[in-house]
C-alpha cells in the first residue's frame, strides 16, 4: 500500500487543476483533488437497513461515521468482487464526508484547463450530467466526474427520510 501513501501525500499537497484518477472497469475517471480528503484501503463496514443498494454501509473514519457508496452500483455497472486493489476515496461534498468505493486508484495528475473538453458525444453508460468534461492525458482519456452532483443530497436519496 506504499502507492496509497504516495498518492495521499500528493492529495494533501494538491492544487487547483490537479485530479485524482481511478478506474472503474475499463475506463479511467478523475475527480478534482480538492474534493478528495484521502484514500483508504478497502475495509469492512457496517450495513445500514433501508437505504438504496449502492449505499454499502457506514464506516468509522477517526471517530466520524461515514457512509460508503459503491460507485459501480451508483453508475449501474455490474457488481465486482472487492479485491486488494479496491480502495475507498474519502470525499467532501456539501460539508458531508462520504466514502466512495472504486476498482483501483491510479494517480494524481495535472490537467490544464485547455486539456479538458466539454462533454462530447460519449457513450459510457453514465448519465451525461454526471460528467464534467473529458480530460486528455497523453494517449489516455480521463472522464472528469461532477462529484458534487453525483453525491448531492437528492442523488443520495437523503430526502426520502421515513
Amino acid at each position: 500500500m506504499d502507492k496509497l501513501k504516495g498518492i495521499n501525500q500528493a492529495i494533501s499537497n494538491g492544487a487547483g487543476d490537479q485530479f485524482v484518477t481511478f478506474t472503474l472497469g475499463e475506463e479511467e475517471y478523475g475527480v478534482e483533488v480538492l474534493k478528495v480528503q484521502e484514500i483508504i484501503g478497502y475495509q469492512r463496514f457496517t450495513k445500514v437497513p433501508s437505504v438504496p443498494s449502492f449505499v454499502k454501509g457506514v464506516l468509522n473514519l477517526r471517530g466520524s461515521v461515514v457512509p460508503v457508496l459503491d460507485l459501480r452500483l451508483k453508475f449501474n455497472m455490474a457488481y465486482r468482487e472487492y479485491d486488494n486493489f479496491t480502495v475507498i476515496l474519502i470525499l467532501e461534498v456539501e460539508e458531508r464526508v462520504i466514502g466512495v468505493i472504486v476498482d483501483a486508484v491510479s494517480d494524481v495528475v495535472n490537467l490544464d484547463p485547455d486539456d479538458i473538453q466539454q462533454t462530447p458525444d460519449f457513450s459510457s453508460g453514465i448519465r451525461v450530467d454526471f460528467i464534467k468534461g473529458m480530460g486528455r492525458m497523453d494517449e489516455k482519456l480521463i472522464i472528469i466526474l461532477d462529484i458534487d452532483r453525483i453525491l448531492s443530497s437528492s442523488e443520495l436519496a437523503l430526502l426520502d427520510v421515513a
Partner: protein
Amino acid sequence: MDQETLLETFITEATELIQELEIDVVALEDSSDDVELINRIFRAAHTIKGSGGLVGLTAISDFTHSMESVLDLVRQRELAVTGELVSVLLRAVDLLKAMIKSAATGESCFEQRELEFVLELLGQFLPEREERVDTEEMLSTKNRKETSYFEIEMKLSENLLETGTDPLMLFRELEDIGEIVDIVVDARSLPDVYNVDAHKLYLNWRLVLRTSEPFSSIENVFIFVQDDSEISITDVSCHYKDGVDLRVADMRLGEILAEKGLVVSCDIEEALSSQTRIGELLVQNGKVKEEDVKSALDKQLKSREVQKATTIRVDTDKLDKLVNLVGEMVIAVARTVQQNVYESHEGKRTTQDALDMLQRISGDLQEQVMRVRMIPVEGLFSRFHRVVRDLANAEGKHVRLLLSGTETELDKNVVEQLSDPLKHLIRNSVDHGVESPGNRRKAGKPEEAVVKLSAYQQEGNIIIEVLDDGHGIDSNAIVDKAAEKGLINQGDDLDEREIYQLMFMPGFSTAKEVTEVSGRGVGLDVVKRNIDDLKGSIEVISEIGKGTTFRIKLPLTLAIIDGMNVKVGDEAFIIPLMAIVESIRPNREAVKTVEGTGEVIDARGEYLPLVRLYNVFDIETDKTNPSEALVVIVESSQRRFGILVDDVIGQQQAVIKSLEKNFRQVEGTAGATILGDGSVSLIIDIHGLERMAFKSFKSIQVSGLEGEAA
C-alpha cells in the same frame, strides 16, 4: 469586538435577561413588596436599554426606557403593583421579545401598532410630566419647574475600557437627563506618550449637572461602573444660582489648586479617601435609613463575591465534541483494561493497578465533562408561571403553580427541547385538568387548583412530572373515544396503562370543546413525539376526582446511552437499556403465529408481538429459529414487544454518533456508535423499529382517521 459580534452578544444577553424579566414580573404580582425583586426587574430593563443603545438598536432602547420609567415609579413606591400593571408589563415584555427577535433575524416580528399601543398603556401609569420625556420643549419646561445641581466626581476604574464601557456614554446619558454646566478633567495620571497603554483609562472628571431629575436618575447612569469606580454625587443646589458656583468665592486655596491639577497625586488620593460615600451621603440627606444602606452594601458585597466565581461563554459545539471525545476515551480505556485482564500473567500486576487508576480517572473526567453541559431546570420551570397565569386568567380559574426539584440538572439540549412538550402538558392541565372554581367548590375542593411541576433523579434517569388536582381522566371515556375514532376495536381488552397510552395517538383529543389554547387537534401525540426524540418515555397516572399526573422519564444525557450489544448475523446493534425489560430464550412452544397479526411470544404468560430483527433490517443470519436465538423484550410507550436477535454480547456504554451529519437519518435507528474494535454499530430506536415492524397496524389507524376527517 466588531459590531456584529457586539450585536450577537447583545441578543444572547438580552434574550436571557428578558426570560428572567418575564419570570420576575410574574412573581411581582404575588410579592409586590420584594424590594430586591423590583430592583432586579429595574436593572434588567435598564441593562437592555443601555446595551441596546450601545449596539445602535434605538427602538429597543427607547422602548425599554418607557418601561424603565414605569418601573422606576414602582421602585420609588409611587406606583402600586396591580394585576393590571403586571399584565401591561408582560405585554411589554412580549413586545420586547419580538423586537429582539427582529434584531436577531433582520425581519420585522412585531407590528408598529402594537408598539404604539403598549407605549400608550405604559404611559397611563406615568404622571403627566413624565410623558414624552425626549422632546426639547418638555425638557426646558421641566428645567423651569424644579432644577437641582449635582456635583459628580468620577474616579473611574483604570480598566473601565476593557469592560466595554465608554466614558463618553456616561456623559451622553448625563446629557439626556440634564445639562453639564461645569466640567473639569483630571489628567494628572496620564503618563507621557511613550508609556500610554491604549487599553487603560487615565482620566477622571468632576462635573456639575443641572437637572430636574431626581438623585436616583443620576445614580442609574453609573449603575454599571459603580462597582469598580468611585462615583460620588453631591447635591450642590444650594451653592448654585443661575448656573454660577457661589462656593468659589469662599473656596480654599488648596481646593482651587487641587482642581487645577497643581497638587501631587498622593494628596488627591488622601482627599478622595476622605470623601463621603454615596450611602453616607444619602443617610445624611435623610433620604434613606442607615440600615437600608447597610443592607444594600451587604448585597453589593455579596454580588461582588458571586461575580468572582467567573463564568465564560462556550460554544455548545465545542462542548459536544469534548463530551464525545471523553466518551470514546472511557470506552477505549475500558477495552484496554479488559484486554489486560485476559492476557494477564504474572508481572502484570503493576500494569493492572495503573490501568485501574486510569479507568477511575477517566470515569471522573467523563462525569465532570458531562456536568459542564448540565443546567438546572429552574429556568425552564419558572417560565411556566406566566403560562399558568395567563391561561388561568383567560379561563376564570384560580390555579397555583408549584415547582419542586428545580435544582435538578439536565443536559442543556434536553432542557431546550423539553420546553414545548412541558408547556403543552401544563396548558393541558390548566385547560382540561382542573375544574372551574364553582365546580371545585361543589366537589368539596379548595377553589384554588394546584398544578405541580417537579423534577427528580431516579436510577440514572430524570423524572419530570406534571401533576394537577383536577377531576382526573375517565378511562372509559378514552376507550369510547378511541373506538369512535377507530383507533381500537370495541371490546379490545386493554389494561389501564394501555388505555392512557391511547391519548398519545395522533388525532386523539378528549377536550369536549375547542378552547383558544389547546384542543386544536394537535395534542398529546406531539408531546409524545418530542419525548421520543429525547429518548424518553411518558406515562399517565390518573384517579377520578383526585387528579392526573403526566410522568416523563428522560435519560441523563443525550450524548451517551447505556445499551445492550446484540448480534444479528455479522452485524452488531445497540438496544438502549432503558427500553429493555428482560431477555429470554424461548422454548419451541413459546412462539405462535396469529393469523393476520404475525408472531407472538409467550413471555411469562403474556403474549407479546415478536419482531425478527433480521427481517426488519434485512440481514442474513442462520439463527432464524427462536429457540436457538434470544428474544429481548422491550417496552415502547405503545406496547411491549420482543426483538429476536442471534445473541446478546453484553452491556456497554455507547457514545451516540450522528448518522445524519454525513449521511441521513436511517429509519429504525437512533444513530450509531463506535465499538471497541473500531467498527460502527447502529443504535436501535425502539419507537422507529416499532413503526417499521407494525407498519400495517399503523396504516390502518391512519386511514381510519382520515376517513373520519373527511
